[in-house]
C-alpha cells in the first residue's frame, strides 16, 4: 500500500459515503440508474481507473472499496470491459459498460457482412446490461476465432433480471450489424474473461465482508441485553473473531487476484482465491446476521446491502464447485515432490 493508493482510497471512500445511502439503494433496487453517483465517480476519474493511470491491482483495490459501500454501479464491469477493449485495440468508450457472455457455454456468433460485421446470439445474466451504454461482447466467427465486439446497448433487446441484491442481471438478445471498427480479434480466450470476472468478484467479496464485520462490531458494542452490550458475551466475541478471520482470508484472496491478473493470468491463484473467497462469503454473512438478530433481517438496516451481494457474488464467475477442482487437478497432476512448488508458483525454471 503506497501513498497514492492510500490517497485514492480516501477519496473513493469519501465519495461513496457521500453518495450511497438508503434512498440510492431503494431507487437502484427499483431499477433506477444512480446517475448522480455515477457522475460523481466519472468526475473523479474513478470509472476509468486504468485510463486515469492506475495499475490493475490498484483498480482492484478500488472495487474492494466500492463494495465496502455496496455502491450500486457497474464499476467492476466497466473496468473489465475497458480492459478487454484496450487489450484488443478497440477505442475505449465512455459511460457505464459491461461484458458478455458471463455464463459458461453461451456463445455469440459473428460474421462478415458487406463491409461490416453481424453479431447474433443471446447472453443471460449480463450484469447491469440495461444501464450499460455499451457492452464488450466476446464472440466467435465460423472458424472458431474469438473477437471482441463493442455493442451499443440500444442495438440489443433486453429482458430484465436481477441477482439476490437486485443488481441488474439481464438477458441480451442480439441480431445486429456492427461497423468494422467495433470488432477486433481477441488475443485471449473465454477463460481469461472468466478469470477477470472471478478476480473482480473476489475483490468485491473482500469489501463486502469488511463492511459486514464493521457493522457487526459496531452493533455488538451498542446493543444491550441482559444489562450489557452483547459484544461482552464471549459467544458473540468468538463468532465475530471468526467473521474477522473469514474477512481476513477474503482480503488476502483479493490481494492474490490483484497480482495474478494480466492478459495471461495466473489461473491457479485466481481459482484458489475465488473459491476461498466464496466460502468466506457464505460463512461470514451467516455470522454477521446471527450477531444482529432481527434488525439485520430488515431492509432498512444496511447489513443486507452487503450480505445480499455476498450471496450472489460468491456464485458469479464460478463458485467453489467450479474453481476448486481446477486447483485439485493441478495438485493431482504433480509428483508428490512437485505439489508444493506448484501450489506456491515456485517451480524451478
Amino acid at each position: 500500500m503506497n501513498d497514492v493508493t492510500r490517497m485514492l482510497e480516501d477519496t473513493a471512500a469519501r465519495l461513496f459515503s457521500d453518495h450511497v445511502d438508503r434512498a440510492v439503494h431503494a431507487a437502484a433496487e427499483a431499477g433506477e440508474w444512480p446517475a448522480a453517483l455515477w457522475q460523481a465517480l466519472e468526475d473523479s476519474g474513478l470509472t476509468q481507473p486504468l485510463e486515469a493511470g492506475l495499475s490493475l491491482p490498484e483498480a482492484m483495490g478500488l472495487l474492494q472499496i466500492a463494495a465496502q459501500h455496496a455502491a450500486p454501479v457497474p464499476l467492476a464491469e466497466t473496468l473489465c470491459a475497458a480492459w478487454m477493449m484496450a487489450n484488443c485495440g478497440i477505442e475505449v468508450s465512455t459511460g457505464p459498460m459491461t461484458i458478455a457472455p458471463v455464463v459458461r457455454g453461451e456463445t455469440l456468433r459473428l460474421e462478415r457482412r458487406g463491409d461490416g460485421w453481424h453479431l447474433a446470439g443471446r447472453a443471460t445474466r449480463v450484469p447491469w446490461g440495461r444501464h450499460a451504454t455499451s457492452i464488450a461482447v466476446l464472440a466467435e466467427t465460423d472458424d472458431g476465432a474469438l473477437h471482441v465486439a463493442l455493442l451499443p446497448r440500444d442495438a440489443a433487446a433486453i429482458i430484465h433480471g436481477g441477482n439476490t441484491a437486485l443488481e441488474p442481471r439481464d438477458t441480451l438478445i442480439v441480431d445486429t450489424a456492427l461497423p468494422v471498427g467495433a470488432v477486433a480479434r481477441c488475443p485471449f480466450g473465454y477463460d481469461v474473461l472468466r478469470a477477470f470476472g472471478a478476480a473482480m468478484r473476489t475483490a468485491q467479496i473482500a469489501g463486502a465482508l469488511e463492511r459486514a464485520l464493521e457493522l457487526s462490531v459496531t452493533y455488538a458494542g451498542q446493543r444491550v441485553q441482559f444489562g450489557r452490550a452483547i459484544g461482552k458475551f464471549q459467544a458473540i466475541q468468538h463468532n465475530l473473531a471468526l467473521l474477522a478471520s473469514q474477512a481476513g482470508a477474503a482480503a488476502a484472496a483479493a490481494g492474490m487476484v490483484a497480482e495474478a491478473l494480466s492478459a495471461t493470468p495466473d489461473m491457479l491463484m485466481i481459482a484458489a482465491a475465488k473459491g476461498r473467497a466464496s466460502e468466506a462469503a457464505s460463512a461470514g454473512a451467516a455470522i454477521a446476521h446471527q450477531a444482529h438478530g432481527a434488525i439485520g433481517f430488515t431492509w432498512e438496516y444496511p447489513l443486507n446491502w452487503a450480505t445480499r451481494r455476498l450471496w450472489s457474488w460468491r456464485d458469479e464467475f464460478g463458485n467453489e464447485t467450479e474453481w476448486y477442482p481446477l486447483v485439485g487437478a493441478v495438485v493431482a497432476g504433480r509428483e508428490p515432490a512437485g505439489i508444493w512448488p506448484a501450489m506456491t508458483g515456485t517451480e524451478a525454471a
Partner: protein
Amino acid sequence: MDLLRFDAPPVSPEAEALRQEVRTFLRAELKPGLSRDRSGTLGGFNPEFSRKVGARGWLGMTYPKQYGGHERSMLERYVVLEEMLAAGAPINAHYVADRQSGPLLLRFGNEDQKHEVVPRIARGECYFCIGMSEPDSGSDLASVRTRAVETNGGWRVNGTKIWTSYAERSHYMILFCRSADADPKDRQAGFTQFLVDMKTPGLTINPIRNLAGDTNFNEVLFQDMLLPDSAVIGKAGNAWKQLTSELALERSGPDRFLAGFKLFRTLVGQLGPDPGERARLELGRHAAHMMVLRRMSRSVAAMLQQGQDPALQGAMVKDLGTTLEQSLPDMVRQLAPVEGDPEAEDELAAALADVTQNAPSYSIRGGTREILRSTIARGLGLRQ
C-alpha cells in the same frame, strides 16, 4: 480496518534464489528412512541436521552478524522455513530457539547472554524449551505459581512446570515465573524471565507420555534451584511485556498450516493423477485454503520486517490454519480406503494415524483456539 490488511509481500529475487538452494540441500539430506520421531507436528528432533542447517547460514538468519547471525530479511527466513516444513524436515531441535528464544535474548538479554548463547543458536548447536505452563496454569498464565525469591546475588526458584516440549534434550529453558508478590491491582506485574541452564542443580525432568506414545513433553521440577542474577532476561518484573513480543512470532508461522503437509502429499500421491471429481474438489479446496493462508502468513512476515505488530493477523493465521489441518484426517478418510496405523509400512496409513492423533494439540499449544479468538475480539475492540 487495519486488522484486515494483508498487503502484498515484497518480491524478492534473493529469496527465490535461496529457495532453490534450500531445495537442493533438502533433496540431498532427506533420504528416505531418515530417523525421525513421530512428533506429528514438525518433522522430528535431529541435532545433526540442525547443525548442517546452521552451517549453511539458515539459522539466526535475521540476527545481527555481531551475534553470529546473518542479517537477512524475515522473508528470506520465511522461505527457508516453509521449504523445510513442506519437505517434512526434522527441525524440532532448533526450531524454538531460532524462532523465539534467540530474538528474545537479542531484544532483552544482557551482553553475556547474547555473546555466549545466541551464536550457538545460529550454529544449530543450542536448543531451547519454554517453561510457561504449570499444572494449575494454562491459558491463564498470570496465575503461575513457580516462584523466584531474591537471595544474595541471585535467585532461589521453587515450583513445577509442565508440558515442556523437549526439556530433556534442550540446553536452556526460558523460564517464566513469579518474582514478586501478586499485585491485586495489576495481574501482569511481578513476573520475570530467566535463562536457565538445564543442568542446573535442583532441576529435575520427568517425561510424560502423550496419547501417541511419544515422550517429548515433560514435567520440570525446581527444588531450591539457585540462579545467578545474570540469568535474568531483561528487567526483573518486566516479563509480561517481553512475552507479548514473542507471541506474534510464535503464532503466525507456516508451521500453523503445514504441520500435516506430509499427509496431504501422501494422499495426493496415492490417489494419482486422475483421482475423480470429488477428490479433485476436496484436494483443490484444501490446497486453496493453504495458498490463501500462505499469503496471509507471508504478509505477516513482511509486516514484522517493517517493524509493525501484526499480532491479530498472526492469531487469524493460527486459528484458520489449525482448523484446516484438523480437517485433514477427515478428508483422507473420505477419499482413500485407508485405516490409520502408526506402525504401518504404508506411508498413508502411518501419516494418517500420526496426524489424527496429533491434531487435537494443534489448537491447544501456543494459545488455545478460544484464547486466540478472544485476542482477535480484543483487537476488534469488543473487550479490554
